[in-house]
């Protein structure tokens, strides 16, 4: 499939997630198109992370999902590919946090998270280290550092770089700017913009978004497990809706979930 704007990548209809003893997400319906950068916002505990995990397909029992969820398979441009021929996958998901139990260096983590997509064709970690996106996030000098010795921001950069280096059509980032200082936050947003320009579709769960009005194409507002808005016009900052979302005013429907 060729990369062209206007193709539907993510499709949700009456999508719900259940976990004993209640529904975490109820009746979500939304769509996302190629090249769109979507900000997923909402108060704490509104179900942002759960939605991203559900989209990534990593929810294990006792989590249960129902309804329709479609993620289209498509080829993304090769700008970030470098020399590696990575297997194409539907989604790449970068979790909110990740704690290693093993003692390992950054180099090994990169190899571990990328080599699996490579179907073991190359055994040399250098190939992955040369990926341009790793360079953008300044991972080079950290390669021989143990993960346990990294600062929060450095670890976040390594994880983001690995997640974004994967050859996926849809990227799901769970609060990617936590721990990042202004400089790296800027890098993050420019990398995301480049990915979108190639036709990737990105969903970013966010807490801080007041300075992103022009960068985000679409806003999904989540409260109490329900999507409060998702269909407004592309590129329009829904200031009033966001205000209501966080103040909890006028969101009667949210109470249904309670």
């Amino acid at each position: 499939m060729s990369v062209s704007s206007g193709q539907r990548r993510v499709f949700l209809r009456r999508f719900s997630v259940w976990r004993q003893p209640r529904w975490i997400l109820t009746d979500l319906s939304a769509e996302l198109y190629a090249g769109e950068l979507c900000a997923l916002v909402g108060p704490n505990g509104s179900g942002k992370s759960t939605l991203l995990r559900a989209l990534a397909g990593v929810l294990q029992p006792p989590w249960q999902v129902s309804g329709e969820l479609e993620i289209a398979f498509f080829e993304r441009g090769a700008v970030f590919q470098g020399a590696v021929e990575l297997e194409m996958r539907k989604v790449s998901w970068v979790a909110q946090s990740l704690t290693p139990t093993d003692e390992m260096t950054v180099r090994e983590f990169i190899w571990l998270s990328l080599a699996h997509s490579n179907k073991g064709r190359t055994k040399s970690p250098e190939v992955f280290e040369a990926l341009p996106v790793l360079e953008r996030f300044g991972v080079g000098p950290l390669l021989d550092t143990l993960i346990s010795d990294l600062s929060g921001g450095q670890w976040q950069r390594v994880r983001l770089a690995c997640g974004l280096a994967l050859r996926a059509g849809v990227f799901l980032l769970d609060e990617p700017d936590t721990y990042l200082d202004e400089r790296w936050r800027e890098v993050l947003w420019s990398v995301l913009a480049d990915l979108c320009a190639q036709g990737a579709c990105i969903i970013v769960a966010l807490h801080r978004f007041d300075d992103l009005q022009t960068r985000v194409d679409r806003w999904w507002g989540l409260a109490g497990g329900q999507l409060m808005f998702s269909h407004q016009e592309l590129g329009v900052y829904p200031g009033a809706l966001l205000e209501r979302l966080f103040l909890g005013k006028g969101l009667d429907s949210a109470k249904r979930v309670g």
Partner: protein
Amino acid sequence: MFFALLALMFGPATPLNVWFELLSGKRNWLDFLSDNSSVLKLRLVHVILSITTGMALSAAGRAMQQLMQNPLADPHVVGLSAGSTSAVLLTIVLFPAYSATLLWDVFPALWISAALGSFIALILVQVVFQRVVRRWGVASLALVGLLLNASFSAFLMLIFARLSPDSLAEVQAWTLGSIQPHGLFQVVLIAPVLLLGALAFVVLDKELKLMSFGVEFASSHGVNVRRLRQKSLVILMLVSAAAVCAAGSVGFIGLLIPHLTRRLFFRSAWLWARPWLNVLLGGGFLLIADLCSRTLTSPLELPVGVYTALFSAPFLMAVLLRKERVA
């Protein structure tokens, strides 16, 4: 290799005369091989069993730690070994024909009961741990293991009471972990299981390592979590049962060796070698511990578990202290 040769050479009775007899033609090789009581052969059994058991236990320890995302996991700590031991002794008591000593001629029966025992323990650990881990955190695994071990050892005490004084000493040494060679039959039955188990974990290591970051991370990187879990649990069950049959309930290897490997070979250069090094280190360690147990207090043979504990405890203490400092 060196230690293996050393282990063949030394023991309460020196086999040098046997070698001389063999080499000078006084004794026939064929006779020697078919003679079950030969000192050298018993030692060979010792060497093979200690190496393979060490390999399998360290591989199992590493796999469990990755699988449960828990640095405390190990077949001994969580009670798999105790489960197997109890099951074997229960079989011996229930079928008095076996009870004269640990009669390894009825080996397959004991093996099966050991496997059942470790299976029950594994299920118990899984069920209990899954439920308590959210409330009490990773350390709860040690707690669950402690409780399981306590129950099993209480059960063992009850069984001890039913044993004849003759077999009691042997059985007690065995529960502490001691390699008791009972002929080539034992080797043929157990060593391949141990070896294949260790190998299987080495092959699965990449997926298991992804798993060590958590189930969701692994599954988002293309690991079939359910299948990996099932495979690993079956191998774990077989391996810990085989290890118990070979060396009794020998502890600490699955805890010590993986942590040691991690400490020694954390650099990226060792990336692919690490699971192999882990296994080899495990085999070597138990071999040396076994050698010590047979020579240091000669002619008395102390259970090998005594030495693994003696070596391991200080090191693990150091690991814990270092973790504390970093945190």
